């Protein structure tokens, strides 16, 4: 056989355009169907309501459990969204369509991450005020909102990677939480601790280690996903 052919040149900025294309496609499809956001939102609000009825909380206890309840809600709703986001690609065979594109496959990953993050932030933007009303806890704390964004980036980053693995299995609905929760535990712990710190007005020195952990976790897992995504999605 002849030697390998020269690599086909790729126009500059192709990676960014591919990421933008995947984001646009996910947002446009969701804008039409509202399947994913609807399911995540209803589920998240139900969880908040159930906690509201299940926990008879006095004012002091409320401030200590708020962060935990919020992150449990985000984690459950996020898992639902991640499963549906990748499941829809697989069920319609569109995952193959994406993988056939001549782009670095991590562009597909980052496109899905940005779209999933947008969905998660929309849900959080609705759940936080609802929670604040139901529990009478002031949640419009800038630091807390920053932690929610940081925590969501890490959660969606790892979740999108693992959902891409789980989607190949018939038992993907069950498999994703089993794979995801152990891996994301340090992230959730740091997010809960940092959120709690901001809600209780702790000193910056007490909160900063948790915020740093969130930052490191986000960077490490986004880099790992960027490196391994090609192998994860290939048979």
């Amino acid at each position, binding site marked *: *056989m*002849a030697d*390998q*052919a020269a*690599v*086909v040149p*790729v*126009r500059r900025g*192709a990676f960014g*355009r*591919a990421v*933008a*294309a*995947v984001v*646009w*496609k996910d947002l*446009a*499809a*969701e804008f*039409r*169907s509202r399947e994913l956001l609807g399911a995540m939102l209803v589920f998240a609000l139900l969880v908040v309501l159930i906690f509201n009825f299940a926990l008879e909380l006095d004012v002091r206890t409320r401030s200590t459990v708020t962060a935990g309840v919020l992150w449990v809600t985000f984690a459950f709703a996020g898992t639902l969204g991640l499963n549906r986001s990748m499941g829809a690609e697989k069920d*319609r*065979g*569109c995952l*193959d*369509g*994406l*993988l*056939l*594109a*001549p*782009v*670095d496959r991590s562009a597909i990953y980052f496109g899905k991450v940005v779209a999933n993050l947008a969905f998660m932030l929309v849900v959080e933007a609705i759940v936080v005020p609802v929670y604040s009303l139901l529990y009478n806890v002031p949640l419009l704390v800038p630091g807390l909102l920053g932690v929610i964004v940081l925590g969501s980036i890490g959660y969606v980053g790892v979740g999108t990677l693992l959902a891409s693995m789980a989607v190949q299995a018939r038992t993907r609905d069950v498999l994703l939480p089993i794979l995801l929760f152990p891996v994301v535990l340090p992230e959730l712990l740091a997010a809960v601790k940092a959120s709690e710190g901001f809600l209780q007005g702790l000193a910056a020195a007490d909160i900063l280690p948790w915020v740093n952990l969130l930052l490191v976790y986000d960077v490490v897992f986004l880099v790992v996903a960027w490196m391994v995504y090609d192998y994860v999605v*290939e*048979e």
Partner: protein
Amino acid sequence: MIEVRRLVKTFGLKPVLRGVDFDVEPGEFVALLGPNGAGKTTFLRILASLSRPTLGDVRLAGFRLPGQAASVRRVLGVVSHQPLLYGDLTGEENLRFYGRLYDVPQLEARVAQVLEMVGLAARRRDLVHQYSRGMQQRLAIGRAVLHDPEIMLFDEPHTGLDQEASLMLDGVLRQVAARGRTVVMTSHDLLRSAELATRVDILSRGVIAASYPRASLEPASLPSLYREAIRG
């Protein structure tokens, strides 16, 4: 254009392809026949860079798999029995999306041209889930030819199509072949394959069991040749 040597693919301990040798010249149209479970789809998925070979050497247009997969994908168009389209996007939006992924220059003009070619210009703003199966398959072909690939892979493209849609698809396949594109198509339809292809290969028990150039093949004799090949 396509060179495959001693290709082996196993899933766990189960071998699906057991040393396939396969060559396709530029402009050739090869129909790949074989019973269910023969490994046709696995073979096509490896050519499409969707699955890694366990052993062996695979090259398309001079690019080696899996090392130069991105370059292979640039010269490859794939039509599967699933349309690989988004039901909640319109036909035009689907093509525009894939066009962006393939970085197609002058995308709007190319999308309009392809929609015209597959006869869906009038339905371009309809959501794909409102399309019939035949229309979806036409749009799937449009998606696959959008970047004007040199090599086309068709995996049982007639599956689920009615008679009229199948005839339409045959017309599109002839158009693709007439433009000098290299085509590999898997199928269960012996007579249709013999009519369309310039060569018929039979994959059985993980190897190419027989190969018949169209020029030396009497279509009526294909069923008996096929039975003979799969019996080994």
